[in-house]
């Protein structure tokens, strides 16, 4: 339910004509929610621009997977390329938007989403490239962890994926934008109050004037 709110808000970040990279996990679910009248090309960093829906059982092709290693299809207008080209595209600023999951976000726009010390080291995959390369970085995550602790922090405690890279954070409580002047609360999720956001957020943030009026 809260996940659904996050995804519904995240899909609004996607505009007609964009090339978008959706991170592994929750962000991948956004693919199915993109309105059919938008012409959007989804990029998969293993070498596909133009991800289509999951295949029917008889279309499954081991030579056609996404970055999460799931079997997918390619839509009309898709192209395949190698990994160096794929990251040239990402690092060179040709991808309009990346929507990524997060473990922790800091008020400075730092992101930690690849490693928990003491746990299995899985590797960063393409996340560090995406946060530095895509034109706009949107992070989606739950606002607090299962112990009720804020994941929106003054400083990240987990190893960073990127420093000062996030443009927008969407949680189950609120939406924030990041700029030179810091972190700003710009929207509340349905039924959430500013007080609730404040009490669940370790980070310092300002509240958008347009939001105060609505609230």
């Amino acid at each position, binding site marked *: 339910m809260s996940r659904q709110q996050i995804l519904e808000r995240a899909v609004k970040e996607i505009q007609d004509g964009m090339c978008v990279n959706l991170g592994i996990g929750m962000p991948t679910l956004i693919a199915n929610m993109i309105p059919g009248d938008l012409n959007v090309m989804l990029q*998969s*960093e*293993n*070498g*596909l621009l133009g991800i289509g*829906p*999951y*295949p*029917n*059982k008889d*279309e*499954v*092709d*081991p*030579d*056609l*997977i*996404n970055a*999460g*290693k*799931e*079997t*997918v299809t*390619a839509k009309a207008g898709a192209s*395949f*390329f*190698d*990994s*160096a080209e*794929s*990251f*040239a595209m*990402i*690092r060179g600023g040709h991808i309009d938007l990346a929507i990524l999951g997060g473990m922790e976000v800091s008020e400075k726009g*730092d992101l930690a989403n690849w490693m928990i010390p003491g746990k*299995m*080291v*899985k*590797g*960063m*995959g*393409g*996340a*560090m*490239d995406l946060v*530095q*390369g895509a034109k706009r970085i949107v992070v989606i995550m739950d606002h607090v962890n299962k112990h009720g602790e804020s994941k929106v922090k003054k400083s990240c405690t987990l*190893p*960073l*994926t*990127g*420093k*000062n890279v996030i443009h927008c954070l969407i949680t189950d409580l609120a939406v924030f934008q990041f700029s030179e002047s810091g972190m700003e609360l710009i929207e509340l999720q349905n039924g959430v109050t500013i007080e609730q956001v404040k009490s669940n957020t370790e980070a310092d943030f300002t509240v958008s004037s347009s939001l105060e009026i609505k609230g």
Partner: protein
Amino acid sequence: MGKLLSSLDSAIQQIEDGATIVVGGFGLSGIPENLIHALRDKGVKDLTVISNNCGVDDAGLGLLLENRQIKKMIASYVGENKLFEQQFLNGELEVELVPQGTLAERLRAGGAGIPAFYTATGVGTEVAEGKEHKEFDGRTYIMEKGLVGDFAFIKAWKSDPFGNLIYRKTARNFNPVVATAGKITIAEVEELVNIGELDPDEIHTPGVYIQKIFVGNHYQKRIEKLTTTNA
């Protein structure tokens, strides 16, 4: 042209303990299955393996882990592999984690005679520690070095006898860059076609990068995560 192998034995025979091998593929897609099996059978040890992933416990490069042949792994994501974790925690396995785009570019650079380049990827993270930092137009970048292996193992769809290669769909992935980054590059392919049969405009890897070609007769092409619309 003498590039065609009837068996992998002679090619694998050249590989000695301690060699550095660059391996194509992403997950289990587009991996050089026959080469990995041959290397497992040969049993050569203390390998440094450079590959985006390390297979899964019972397939792909996971077979070399199982056989304790890998001393050091350079990869971007190894999360599918429990053996990996175990050997890493034991201290049996050395690991260098490299962001995926940096890994792809380090291999391309190595193959292209570029000893080092600058990237913003990893700046401000563990990845940047100990690396040269430099500013260009007000933004900070780190220096990353080109990578070349003693051998490169790749998998393509079609080859002609010169080693001109065509890959299929996302099985292309790291294979074309890995092809350029081996002192000796061995390509295993699904199909051999006659010289002149491939359209020169459609060749992904020109044969100049390929020293040996092997036509595999069985490809498992295991799927890691089967996802379908009706599943």
